[in-house]
């Protein structure tokens, strides 16, 4: 059964190759080919899952050696795949959600003439992402890591005719490079420390390495995770990445790829366990990002950007949990899975809304949509309840566990992290309620106004339902779109309870990540109570602001904090001033050094040799007698030097 593992990757890879090389003759069936192969991968995943469940917990690690990739002396890189409980979880999430989103995209991208290519990219993404989570060594993981980066780049910039999309794609790519440098340095450090980068030996011997080494590796892995998972300080690309088609935002920039950083940290648990300083930094990054994303999410009027802020914030939760060590790993992954359900559902819902609203993304031009798109409303509403942690829904279980674990960290650290997590829960409730109210409740604000401004043409494929510049006529989306939303909504509702009952998820994952119970200063009930209070506070505040009184169609100026949050807390200004300007100054000074010093040395030495050459040349005067003298002198020197050597 191990031999099926490669099939997981091969199916979508085949799809990518066929769709991208197949040309226009596949235009008619391309989307079905893509969806079919993605589903095939999911089915293989289910078969393997059944196989794993049939084994004891200790024997649930399967590897498949494909071929030797780079055998150079001590440097042995193999293409080996590893399927254990952790990667199995990811495989099911990726292929499951991925297949649903393929299905959704059939409807969503129906009018896009490059739909075949879109599905090719989606399949490429699936293959790369599966390689990432199935790799048995860090180098192969790196291949998948870069592959998803490529797919992300291609899909963010899918509507490349829009300059904003092209720029966003480039931005995502560049910011991710910073993280990738971290990963490559981490791999090099591993090789110098352990002499290998295969998971087995590295993680087994992690305890033998010095703490300094482990801290360095851990911090570099964290840098990589920050880039891929949009954590502070490499968060700036995620908001702009919403320029991509909405299914992409749902699949790549919410449910799967952006969680790769969490996977990396949890996978490298043994390294982080030996490096408490690195763990502390991980929790700090997670905590900061949690609040950062939540605050940004509160101020955005663009529905996708609000959700992007939320994604950042939720991944912040996961990173925070992963930084807590064995008490948090399982819950990080559990939240990752439940988040995959509800956030994908929310994004698909947002896409459905946009589909019915002429691609309008400004929530101030929505309002009262619940009557017009009931299925979207219900599924989105369930996702909403899940993410804010409404009791009984999946977010409630997974987030609650993280908050508990944060307190259980103990000491001042525990109080601070727990407090931050609680505060985050309140803000989450606030901004998600805001999204919900602005979109589905209140008076319609979209009547009597053209929604599409001519100077910002969009390729989103809804134009034909209404006049391009006319008043939108909200309507429910086709079935290929609603079915995935319904399935995801079911997952959002039931996933958490399913995982939590009898600690199923904990027992499933524990053999890989390890688990220990912390000693929380607060009882579980207290934490749950506090969370509920925060939830009520957040929802109430949002209702007071957006539910009780009508939402203005144009954004008010807002407080300093609101304005800052609208500008993503000045992240781009900061980057511009510090990195862009700094970079420009650095290049300019380097150019100056190059022109004066380097060129000076080069040209100077060239001129020096030229002058020397001209002078030496004169020795060659053409007279045989002076040649003979030079020979004689040379012979004398030779004799003298030989004798001198003997004397010395």
């Amino acid at each position, binding site marked *: 059964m191990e031999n099926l593992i490669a099939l997981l990757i091969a199916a979508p890879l085949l799809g990518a190759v066929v769709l991208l090389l197949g040309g226009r003759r596949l235009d008619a069936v391309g989307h079905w080919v893509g969806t079919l192969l993605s589903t095939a991968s999911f089915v293989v995943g289910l078969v393997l899952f059944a196989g794993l469940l049939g084994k004891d917990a200790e024997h649930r690690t399967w590897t498949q050696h494909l071929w030797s990739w780079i055998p150079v002396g001590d440097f042995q890189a193999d293409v080996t795949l590893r399927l254990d409980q952790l990667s199995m979880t990811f495989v099911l999430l990726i292929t499951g959600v991925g297949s649903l989103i393929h299905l959704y995209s059939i409807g969503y991208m129906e009018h896009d003439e490059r739909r075949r290519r879109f599905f090719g990219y989606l399949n490429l993404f699936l293959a790369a992402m599966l390689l990432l989570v199935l790799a048995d060594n860090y180098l192969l993981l790196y291949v998948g890591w870069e592959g998803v980066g490529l797919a992300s780049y291609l899909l963010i910039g899918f509507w490349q005719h829009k300059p904003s999309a092209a720029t966003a794609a480039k931005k995502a790519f560049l910011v991710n490079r910073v993280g990738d440098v971290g990963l490559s340095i981490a791999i090099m450090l591993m090789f110098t420390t352990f002499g290998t980068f295969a998971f087995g030996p590295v993680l087994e011997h992690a305890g033998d390495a010095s703490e300094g080494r482990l801290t360095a590796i851990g911090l570099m892995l964290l840098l990589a995770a920050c880039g891929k998972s949009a954590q502070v300080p490499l968060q700036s690309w995620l908001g702009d990445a919403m320029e991509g088609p909405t299914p992409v935002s749902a699949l790549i920039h919410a449910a799967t790829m952006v969680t790769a950083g969490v996977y990396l940290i949890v996978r490298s648990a043994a390294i982080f366990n030996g490096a408490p300083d690195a763990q502390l930094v991980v929790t700090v990054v997670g905590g900061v990002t949690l609040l950062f994303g939540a605050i940004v999410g509160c101020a955005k009027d663009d529905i996708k950007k609000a959700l992007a802020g939320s994604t950042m914030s939720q991944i912040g939760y996961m990173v925070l949990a992963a930084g807590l060590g064995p008490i948090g790993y399982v819950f990080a992954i559990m939240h990752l899975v439940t988040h995959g359900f509800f956030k994908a559902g929310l994004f698909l819902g947002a896409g459905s809304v946009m589909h019915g609203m002429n691609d309008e993304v400004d929530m101030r031009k929505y309002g009262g949509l619940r009557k017009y798109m009931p299925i979207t409303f219900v599924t989105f509403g369930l996702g909403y309840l899940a993410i804010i942690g409404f009791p009984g829904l999946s977010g409630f279980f997974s987030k609650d566990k993280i908050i508990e674990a944060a307190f259980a960290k103990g000491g001042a650290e525990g109080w601070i992290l727990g407090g931050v997590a609680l505060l985050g829960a309140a803000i989450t409730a606030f901004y998600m309620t805001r999204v919900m109210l602005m979109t589905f409740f209140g008076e319609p604000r979209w009547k009597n106004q053209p929604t599409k401004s001519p100077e910002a043409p969009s390729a989103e494929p809804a134009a034909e339902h209404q006049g391009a510049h006319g008043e939108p006529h909200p309507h429910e989306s086709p079935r290929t779109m609603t079915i995935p939303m319904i399935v995801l909504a079911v997952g959002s509702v039931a996933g958490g309870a399913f995982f939590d009952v009898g600690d199923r998820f904990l027992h499933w994952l524990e053999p890989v990540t390890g688990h220990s119970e912390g000693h929380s200063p607060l009882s579980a009930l207290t934490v749950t109570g506090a969370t509920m209070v925060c939830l009520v506070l957040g929802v109430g505040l949002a209702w007071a602001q957006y539910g009780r009184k009508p939402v203005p169609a144009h954004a008010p100026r807002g407080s300093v904090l609101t304005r800052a949050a609208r500008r993503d807390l000045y992240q781009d200004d900061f980057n511009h001033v510090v990195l862009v300007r700094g970079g420009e100054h650095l290049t300019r000074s380097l150019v100056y050094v190059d022109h004066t010093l380097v060129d000076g040395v080069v040209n100077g030495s060239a001129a020096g040799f030229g002058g020397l050459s001209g002078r030496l040349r004169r*020795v*060659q005067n053409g007279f045989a007698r002076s*040649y003979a003298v*030079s020979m004689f002198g040379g*012979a004398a020197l*030779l*004799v003298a*030097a030989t004798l001198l*050597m003997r004397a010395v």
Partner: protein
Amino acid sequence: MSAAAVHSLWTTAADPISKIDAPKIEYGQLSPTLIVIGAALIGVLIEAFVPRRSRYYAQVFVSAVALCAAFAAVVALAAGGYGTTKAHIAAMGAVAVDGPALFLEGTILLAALVGLFTFAERRLDPAAHGNRVDSFAAQAASVPGGEGEQAAVKAGFTTTEVFPLLLFAVAGMLVFPAANDLLTLFVALEVLSLPLYLLCALARRKRLMSQEAAVKYFLLGAFASAFTLFGIALLYGYAGSVSYARIAQVVDGTVSGVDPALANTMGNDALLLIGMALLVMGLLFKVGAVPFHMWTPDVYQGAPTPVTGFMAAATKVAAFGALLRLLYVVLPGLRWDWRPVMWGVAIVTMLAGAIVAITQTDIKRLLAYSSIAHAGFILAGVIATTEDGVSAVLFYLAGYSFVTIGAFAVVTLVRDAGGEATHLSQWAGLGRRSPLVAAVFAVFLLAFAGIPLTSGFAGKFAVFRAAAEGGAAPLVVVGVISSAIAAFFYIRVIVLMFFSDPQPNGPTVAVPSPLTMTAIAVGVAVTVVLGVAPQYFLDLAGQAGVFVR
């Protein structure tokens, strides 16, 4: 004096004579040299007895057959194991038959064959009075520009003597690296030098310059030979023998059976050191190492270009072979005396060759200085004093000789009304008018510069690696710096050919006969093959890296 006394004197005198063994000569193992010498003698007879019209064809035919046969003999000997297991000293201790000797002989013979093609080229110069002419003077003895010359040109004379001269020189070169005693070495040196002096004087165009070059070469060569001979005398005084093996024994102190007449001077280190320095100096003169290099630019420029190409390639191979044998067989025990001195020579040679080349304006002089720099690089490999060093030098020489002949062959193609256009300014824009010729020349220049995928890179890498492993890392640093300097002027020529505007009334590129084309094609092929897949030849040179003692 009584009859009996006379008789006894007679018999006592006769006795030892009867004990002289007949010299044992292994003709088969010496066959490459013998074939070439025989062919050269036949060439002399051809000059004497064959009608003038047919001489050219007869000479070219005999020379080509002889060189091929000699090469076949070398291959047969190597295949017979004389390069490795059966390596020994033949001809009563005079000549070594071993790996380095066979490898170098093979290289020299191939280079000579390619050189022969350029010698035989008769399509480049416009036909004079209906007669095809080659690069050599119509009648060497006639006064340049005089009536005799005009008459000779009109009569369609050609100097077909160049072919036997070439063969004699080759014969000397074949013995030179194989010589195993100092007298054989000296004889070989003269046998290879004298024909070259003559050949240098035989240019058809610019005859005065050619004769000046020949005279300078002869004078300075004679001067160097005098030093060499003096060195040999001193070494004989030191060891009481001219045999390499015997000298090595004396150096080691393992000698036995000393002639009492020599006991006073024997083992006197001053004699050894001075003699060695002078002998080495003679060889350094031949390879063109600084400060014994000054003949090189003048002679390379003045000599007929085919001769320059042949001389630059084959002489260097032979002389480095002799130098290697001398230093490895005779002086291994003296390593620390000669190594630092050779370090100095190598460093100065590399740097001076590269630096002075920068300001050259004549392509032949440029290549002459380039050959000086290359002599320095090869010396770096010689100094390594390891087996790897030997094979690296052998490989380098093989690659270098074909690049050199090819490059000079290209020089013969670029002509204007006055013959070859050797001033660099005339080469401007050549790449636009004759892209193929310019591209081929660019390949040779890149090989000289040691750019990867050419034989120059593989050779330089092998030599520098051997030098570094042999403990001469500073030498490698200087070598790399010199290579960088040298790359400047090689690439400047490429830039000149491809990125400059052609001069009005610039030179034209003559269409050669298949002979020169073959020479150039072989040069390119060897350059590329040794650059792309050097391993087989490195292994070959590696097998040939052990001197027989």
